[in-house]
């Protein structure tokens, strides 16, 4: 239902050129479209009723993000709702959770400043430090390529209150206003449309009320929300792939060379068939991830890594094959294919690439056997 509404909205009210302009703007998305989408309930669908939404389960995420992919939407659904909002929902105090109402209405935008340049996307490799001072904390460190941080009103920042990079214990999460003194946000455009930023913590002083959940126990919260992020990205990629596949089928049925549509050539038919097979594999991986994301335990984590691995591998294949089958026209800015392909490839670079998730899948399996 919501997917239909969202699909219709995108088709009628948010054409591709407007989305490209929004992605390339100084904000990195279109604030007025963001509010309209929130009014349609798109953000609310990503939160449970307890948190003020009307969905929030795995399949809600999958459906919404598949539509976001189909529409090449650049608004901060992942960053503000799934990651930052998700962290508040799962671990925030009552006072912190009060923000969720504004998050769901689109009035307040958040981002998760967690990953660092050398962490290899391993959630345990937090190097940023939070040192206790008085009732509060002083944060220092550098967070890398934080999507939509520049336009965010608040950040959820991970920092180490104990232990060292690689330890699961000792990671804490803090809620920080984006205009806080000691917070420097260097933002820039990204190649797939949108913006990201380097977030520098320069002796950023926060009060005791900034801590989210229990000090030192942030890793579990991160794992929870990042897992939902993996599902969201995988579903988004699936939506992109479906559009790209349809575009490519239409192209090879239309493009004439040697007196026939090029889709008549068996060499190309087989490659198109291969693409379809792989996309169906990806769809299954997303369904499996959506069914697993609300479960506890290692089976959840493995299904999510399996999906991100699958999406990474197949996404690159689909992007490259579709450009190749389009030939020169697929290389142009004017044709929409390239914009979908760029986003699809860059999803591979978010929240860990296929190699990382393949390794993680193996490691989790080995650990489970050794228990």
């Amino acid at each position: 239902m919501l997917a239909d509404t969202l699909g219709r909205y995108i088709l009628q009210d948010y054409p591709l050129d407007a989305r490209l302009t929004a992605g390339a703007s100084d904000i990195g998305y279109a604030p007025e479209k963001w509010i309209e989408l929130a009014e349609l309930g798109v953000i609310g669908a990503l939160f449970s009723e307890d948190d003020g939404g009307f969905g929030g389960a795995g399949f809600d995420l999958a459906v919404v993000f598949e539509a976001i992919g189909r529409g090449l939407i650049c608004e901060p659904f992942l960053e503000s709702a799934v990651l930052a909002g998700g962290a508040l929902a799962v671990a925030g105090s009552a006072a912190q959770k009060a923000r969720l109402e504004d998050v769901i209405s689109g009035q307040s935008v958040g981002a998760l400043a967690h990953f660092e340049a050398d962490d290899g996307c391993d959630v345990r490799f937090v190097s940023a430090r939070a040192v206790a001072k008085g009732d509060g904390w002083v944060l220092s460190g550098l967070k890398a390529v934080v999507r939509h941080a520049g336009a965010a009103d608040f950040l959820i920042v991970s920092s180490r209150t104990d232990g060292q990079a690689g330890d699961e214990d000792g990671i804490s999460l803090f809620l920080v206003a984006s205009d806080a003194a000691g917070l420097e946000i260097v933002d820039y455009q990204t190649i797939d449309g949108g913006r990201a930023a380097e977030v520098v913590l320069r002796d950023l002083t926060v009060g005791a009320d900034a801590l989210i959940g229990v000090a030192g126990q942030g890793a579990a919260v991160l794992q929870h929300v990042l897992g939902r992020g993996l599902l969201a990205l995988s579903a988004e990629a699936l939506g992109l792939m479906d559009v790209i596949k349809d575009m490519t089928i239409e192209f090879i049925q239309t493009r004439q060379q040697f007196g026939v549509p090029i889709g008549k050539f068996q060499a190309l038919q087989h490659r198109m068939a291969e693409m379809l097979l792989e996309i169906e594999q990806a769809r299954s991986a997303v369904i499996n991830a959506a069914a697993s994301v609300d479960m506890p335990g290692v089976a959840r984590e493995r299904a999510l890594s399996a999906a991100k691995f699958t999406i990474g591998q197949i996404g690159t294949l689909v992007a490259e094959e579709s450009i190749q089958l389009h030939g020169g026209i697929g290389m142009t800015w004017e044709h929409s294919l390239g914009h979908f392909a760029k986003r699809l490839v860059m999803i591979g670079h978010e929240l860990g690439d296929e190699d990382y998730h393949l390794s993680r899948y193996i490691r989790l399996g080995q650990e489970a056997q050794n228990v």
Partner: protein
Amino acid sequence: MDLNYSADELAFQAEVRNWLSENLSPELSYKVKHGQRQTKEDTEGWHATLNSNGWLANHWPVEHGGPGWTAIQRHIFEEECCLAYAPRVVPFGVSMLAPVLIKYGNEAQKTHWLPRILDGSDWWCQGYSEPGAGSDLASLRCKAARDGDHYVVNGQKTWTTLGQYANMIFCLVRTSGEGKPQQGISFLLIDMNTPGIEVRPIHLLEGTHEVNEVFFTDVRVPVENLVGEENKGWTYAKYLLTYERTNIAGIGFSMAALGELKTIAKDQKRAGRSLADDPLFAARLARAEIELENARITNLRVVSAAAAGGAPGAESSMLKIKGTEIRQELDNLKRKAVGAYAAPFVPEAMDAGFNGPDIGPDYAAPIARQYFNNRKISIFGGSNEIQKNIISKMILGL
């Protein structure tokens, strides 16, 4: 077959390396290495530097100004230029048109055009593809009708690389609709400043302007600009394409890219260890390295077999496919190697002298852009699918 260079060849390699270290400016080399935009002047300057030493047209016969190198020497030179991050020689005049003129042009054409290629008087571009004639190049429709001492050209060309800088274009035009499509094509040299020519930019998916559309409306071209015979242009066109394909294989580019990739993999840290020590990445890198080494030797085999100055035949299709697949895989691995830092896109960082803040490691800035841009290399010069058709027909006899 002896794969080691002879003493003379090693001495030549040292000579080239030494010359490059003295004549290739660090600023220009830095631009190439870091994927920064090169200006028209950069290219013209580098052509002039090479030409001052007689090395620009290194595959031309001696009587036209070539240095008389063997195929192996040319190969060594290409490799050294890539490893030193010399700018690419823009191939349209010196490497594509010139062999056609030397083999099929008349004396007047050789005397007039070849020196102008050497001294940079002309910047040539290529008028082959049309919107309806890509892989099926012979179906081209841009028409040239004879009118007294002129041809009158009407039609459109596309994917014209660096056409925005060119003052001359060599074009395949249709001079006859009789017989098979291949039989009515002629090869014309056209001055881009002739009235009736319009060049429009095409922007590529990563935002760069390299290629163009060129429109011809009643463009009058003197008949002496016809190369060879009327309606025989397809033969010349195919001869030119074997040069283009060999050029695209880019073994030297891949060798340079492999070196960069290894440096990046060592520098990149992943959860407490270097990326080079990640077994999955190490395996990917090793596979690419082995493929490249194999292709390098295939290239040497083809190069040795081709007569000095001659063009390789269907083997150029093999080199084009393997060479482009390897280049693309190395681009792919570089992209993966920089992780999240593939995403930042700062167009100004592509210009020399950029002073903005560093976003991630400096080598990361051009990587995603290069990855997307180089999707073109398996498409142009005859798509890799077309190369497979050529192999099926010419080598396998199917």
